[in-house]
């Protein structure tokens, strides 16, 4: 089993998720199943094949350094759970 409970806890912490004991156990099993399935891919020989990081071919897709109008502040703040007139508001961060 490549994924143990400690790893699940660590991933949950990085994802800011709080899991119950039951969920930790459940996700450990499920993640292992997924990884075991993916393991099948390793049986394919890929020695002479370049790593593919992108779904499409190509390079150097640029924009010129020209200003495009931003959206207005009201639109930017509209979907925020908490806000002031000018800012997004979040729990105190140190």
């Amino acid at each position, binding site marked *: 089993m490549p994924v143990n409970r400690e790893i699940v806890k660590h991933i949950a912490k990085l994802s800011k998720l709080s899991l119950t004991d039951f969920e930790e156990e459940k996700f450990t099993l499920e993640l292992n199943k997924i990884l075991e399935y993916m393991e099948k891919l390793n049986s394919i020989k890929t020695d002479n094949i370049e790593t593919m990081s992108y779904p499409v071919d190509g390079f*150097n897709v640029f924009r010129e350094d020209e*200003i*495009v109008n*931003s959206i207005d502040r009201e639109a930017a703040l509209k979907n925020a759970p908490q806000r002031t007139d000018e800012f997004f*508001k979040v729990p105190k961060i140190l």
Partner: protein
Amino acid sequence: MNKYEPVIGLEVHAQLLTETKAFCGCSNKFGDQPNTNVCPICLGHPGSLPKINKKMVEFAVMMGLATNCKINFKSSFARKNYFYPDLPKGWQTSQFDEPICSNGFLEITADNNLRTIRINRIHMEEDAGKLIHDETGFSLVDLNRCGTPLIEIVSEPDLQSPHEAFQYLSKLKQILLYLNISDCNMEEGSLRCDANVSVRLTGDKSLGVKTELKNMNSFKNVEKAIQKEIERQIDIIEEGGKIIQQTLLWDADKEEIKIMRTKEEAHDYRYFPEPDLLPVIIDDVWKNELMSKMPELPDVRRKKFSNLYKLPEYDCEILTSTKELADYFESAAKHSDDFKSISNWVMVEVLKFINENNLSVNQFRLSPINLGKLINLINDKTISNKIAKDIFAELIERNIDPLIIIKEKGLTQINDSKFIEEIIDRVIKSNQEQVKQYLAGKDKVLGFFVGQIMKESKGKANPQSVNELLINKLSLMKN
């Protein structure tokens, strides 16, 4: 020799002077109203797609060329994942295993030693937003800065003292300013520096455990903080303790180091290739085109000032400290070939005026042509150096041919020896007491006579002629 030696590496972030952000067309201007330079891309809205600002790439390549880096043919972006409200996407778009530049170096001078500081890499990334902590128990987020293009310049741990770190930073800043790709304003955060510091027994080959110092908002603070950290580490080792790998914050007000986090809490960034941005390919054609756009860099220019204008090392250093000052000198040097005098005037009078009035060289009104003319007027004895200094403020104010001011005020220097001799005779006649003193061997009185004569001539007599003629006359009286 010291028992311990420090090993220091710096990571420097420079905000780039582009019009727009790294991956969207929002304005990159500092100081605008909060959350007005934002769009779905820099706000991290689902489904939005970034697009690379070409200028950011070009600026990064220029910095690489200026620091002797290899410009990598292919580079790519990666996601650096972390969760913090100043970064709404949940990752910083950065570069990881394929940075745009690598393996460069910079030469610095510290304590009269020429030192080569290797640069590990330069990569492109985006800045995060700004958090404002208010009294209400909340934090406020301004995302104007989120997505601002940065380059991160990572040195090898080649710096051996806080002073070398200071010199290295100064050199980086000088180059960034010469290239005009960052305004390097540390107070506004457009240049930021983190330091990796460790100590080891002098001569040891292996590296000690390092700590990372953050939050140093001026070059002086970088120097001070590193010094404090070195002392802290040596104290711990001397008392038999062990250094632990941790991130430390510099408190500039208290001049203290605080612990931010230890290694166990260190971030796990889970880098992976950014699938939304295709790789960047820099071929020789593009690289050469950028190289041809680059200005002469400080080191080259300093050597040129020494070889072409035959100026002392000190002058070359000062005059090439900024591109603007070097340009000013060179323009003036087209109008007068007394390069040393131009250098003196620029280093003393021009810089004094600029500093006293808190100006930049570009805001200085006196054109280099008129400065050159002023120097020529001194050299051809139309005016004395003293008169030139007297009219300098007015000359700056009006920025006209200095000859106009001299004529208006009737300040042309008197070189006519007959006229000067007449004044000398008058002064000698009415100061017999001082003559006696001089003849009795009190040479200092000479200064008094010169002063009186210059006063009589309203400062217009050629001081050199006055000196010569006066000494002649007085020595005749000796016999």
